[in-house]
């Protein structure tokens, strides 16, 4: 079981200056909804953006059952 703060910390480390929102969608510590707003995504297709997030969370992914992802740049908000 993970808590949202754990995921948020990994993401803010990997994407400095990003706005990161993590919700435990079921309250069970294994389903999360994540929004990352970062200029690092600029010019990158969705697959690449999601892969960047998965890479940042690689160590935690085995404990995550489901991850709902939203990846936007500040301009796309």
């Amino acid at each position: 079981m993970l808590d949202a703060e754990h995921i948020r910390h990994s993401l803010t480390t990997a994407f400095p200056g990003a706005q990161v929102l993590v919700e435990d969608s079921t309250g069970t510590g294994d389903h999360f909804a994540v929004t990352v707003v970062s200029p690092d995504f600029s010019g990158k297709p969705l697959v690449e953006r999601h892969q960047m997030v998965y890479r940042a969370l690689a160590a935690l992914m085995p404990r995550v059952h489901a991850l709902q992802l939203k990846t936007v740049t500040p301009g796309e908000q």
Partner: protein
Amino acid sequence: MADDVMQEIENEVRNNSVMIYMKGNPTFPQCGFSAATVKIFQEIGRPFHTVDVLSSPAKREAIKRYSNWPTIPQVYVRGKFLGGCDIVRELHQRGELERIVDEAFQ
């Protein structure tokens, strides 16, 4: 053995315009994300093929390595990895998915 599974995946994504790796099958999806993905492709109405990764543990692991993507479902269009459930949803909401799929059948 592992290489055989990778080769099988390679053939599947090349031989099917739309290929979906999912949990369960379209009639009985075993996961909400797989269900949502299949539903969108059913709405689009073009033929698609599915593989149930729950019935093949080797393929379930191999597909994650093939695409460098840690989750199921995974969708391939014309041999190219399109994304998982969130990407399919987002492309569908933007109205882009139908065009991408239509192009795969031209």
